[in-house]
């Protein structure tokens, strides 16, 4: 592609979200398109690890408290906090291009949609379920 074609192409409006394109990387990026590493401070990595350990202890401790149906939601909420810490700090999403976070959240959202609709479908055959009689091989 001739250089003139490239420089006259309009920049996409969503450039900030989707990352560099071949047009803007050379001319607009600070450092002329060179790498600009962002090492996460060590205290932050250590702090995240310590928090993850504390939350692991907390989630084990939470199983000894009877909250009825809420127990599984408490466990999932703690797991979600841990997952967010891993994704944002360890996986660097906090400083990354937003598209990476959007991709991950979209994946999680589609899994939730998948499970949600499968659970809705369960209502159809719910009357046929006999408690304690899961389908399976003969014992």
């Amino acid at each position, binding site marked *: 592609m001739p250089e003139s074609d490239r420089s006259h192409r309009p920049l996409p409006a969503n450039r900030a979200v989707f990352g560099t394109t071949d047009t803007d990387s050379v001319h607009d990026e600070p450092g002329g398109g060179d790498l600009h590493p962002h090492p996460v401070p060590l205290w932050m990595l250590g702090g995240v690890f310590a928090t993850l350990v504390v939350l692991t202890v907390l989630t084990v401790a939470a199983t*000894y408290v009877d*909250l009825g149906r809420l127990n599984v939601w408490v466990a999932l909420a703690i797991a979600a906090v841990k997952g967010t810490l891993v994704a944002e700090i360890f996986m660097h999403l906090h400083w990354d291009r937003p598209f990476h976070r959007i*991709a*991950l959240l979209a994946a*999680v959202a*589609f899994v939730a949609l998948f499970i949600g609709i499968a*659970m809705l479908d369960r209502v159809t055959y719910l009357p046929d379920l006999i408690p304690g009689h899961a*389908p399976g091989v003969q014992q």
Partner: protein
Amino acid sequence: MASVAANPRYEGKHHLAHHFDTRRQQFDSHKLAMWLFLVTEVLMFGGLFCAYTIYRASHPEIFLFAHTLLDKNLGAVNTIVLLFSSFTMAWAVRAAMLGERRRLSALLAITLLCGFGFLGIKAVEYNHKWQHGFLWGQHFAYAELQDYLAGHGTDAATGPAPDPAADAHAAAVMAELDLAAAVTVAHGHDPALIPRNVHIFFGIYFVMTGLHGIHVLAGMIVIGWLLRRSLRGDFGTRNYTAVDLGGLYWHLVDLIWIFLFPLLYLIH
């Protein structure tokens, strides 16, 4: 970024592929591709989480009973091992970006060792299930389950410690569900209720932890490869892409375990 050019830190062996304009563009393309791959991984595990949700919602008694056959302590220790390996991996990425060659190799080696530790503990757990026939489908040994429960209190070295409070809770929940099919057997000092089709839990347990274990193994191969390249002096301030992306994969494996652990081991 004049400081980068003047930086005495180790730059690593780097080159710009001919089809990229700049290093930045090259790095961004690689990272975007990695994230899209991770998205497919999340979706693949999503199918298993869906199966888990449906079965647990329909037959809570199976999960409530069967999870007591897992070793909560080993599961918790494995969680800490994996979290620690994620920490050392994140630190390794930092070391690569800063051009700290020796530290990078050391941290990758520690991460790899943690991978071995995780799989080792997992092997102890699988072996215990195998010995007692707590397996999937028709391989589940229902006869041995009764023997196992009968000898529960005396066999603390190989199995999870008896937990009267959990037993009482399980019995209460099952009474609440009015389980006509529940079988009462004498197990040491405590009566236990064994629901039908416990093998369904173990089918889900082995597929989910097994697929996760395969991912750990794959991650260890990647980290071993990174370690070899690191020792060769490939990575530095201008070439850390592979370390960064390998790290993303390892963190995803950690992320999935963060959800697997409470869902399989900590059922209440």
